[in-house]
């Protein structure tokens, strides 16, 4: 079992986001909004290009938290703001780097602050999780 200490910085993890993975997430989640798949449509509504589902980015951060906790069953709370869209041009692998700091530790829980970055821009704001120890 991992021991967590307040202030501890946890090793980051790099995730790859590309068009194929957005389609896979759309099918798995049921969120088929065309702004996440169709470049022409995305641009027609004023976006720079296709953008990742906020919930895909959050889901990847959630995978990181599950891994830290040792199981998805240990994740009690998870919240995030979608501050910046993750733009996903065709044929490009976009890197999402997720890291966390332990805010504090109680008898049976740890509170984490999560940072998710794409091209040095924070894409999630106020991202926090509570995990069971």
């Amino acid at each position, binding site marked *: 079992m991992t021991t967590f200490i307040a202030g501890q910085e946890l090793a980051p993890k790099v*995730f790859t986001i590309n068009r194929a993975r957005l389609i896979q997430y759309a099918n798995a989640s*049921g969120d088929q909004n065309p702004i996440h798949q169709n470049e022409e449509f995305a641009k027609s509504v004023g976006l720079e290009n296709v953008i990742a589902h906020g919930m*895909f980015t959050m*889901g990847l951060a959630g995978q990181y938290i*599950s891994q830290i906790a040792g199981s*998805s069953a240990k*994740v009690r*709370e998870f919240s995030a*703001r*979608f501050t910046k869209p993750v733009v996903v041009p065709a044929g490009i692998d976009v890197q999402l780097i997720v890291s966390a700091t332990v805010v504090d530790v109680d008898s049976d829980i740890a509170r984490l602050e999560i940072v998710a970055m794409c091209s040095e821009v924070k894409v999630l704001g106020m991202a926090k999780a509570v995990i069971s120890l």
Partner: protein
Amino acid sequence: MLNPDLVGRTFVGTTKTTISPESIASFADALGESETTVAPPTFGITISLEQSQTLLQDSGLDWSRVVHGDQRFEIFTPLIAGMQVRCDCTIESARVVAGNEIVTVRADLIIETKKAVSTWSTLVFRA
């Protein structure tokens, strides 16, 4: 514009979704998660999103103008395959800022009579 009378109202789900092992496996796989005995922490969105969307569209909001503002999950009982889930949606708040309508919906995923997951979605309907 959302009818202010709807704020605070709970819309009890009329159907139950049975969580299949395949739905957990494909959601986990999409996130690069190998554990499939329990659903990933954000899995509840696959159940809550559709019901929230139906509720808000039926209330007159234009889903084609929606942007996801934030999301929060509280997980009391992790979701696993075989559970039969009812989803109750409550419109917690609605306000207009600079012409954009900001709506927070809470979805409670109920197993039998117990709340397993609560998830809050803040959605921004652009002017």
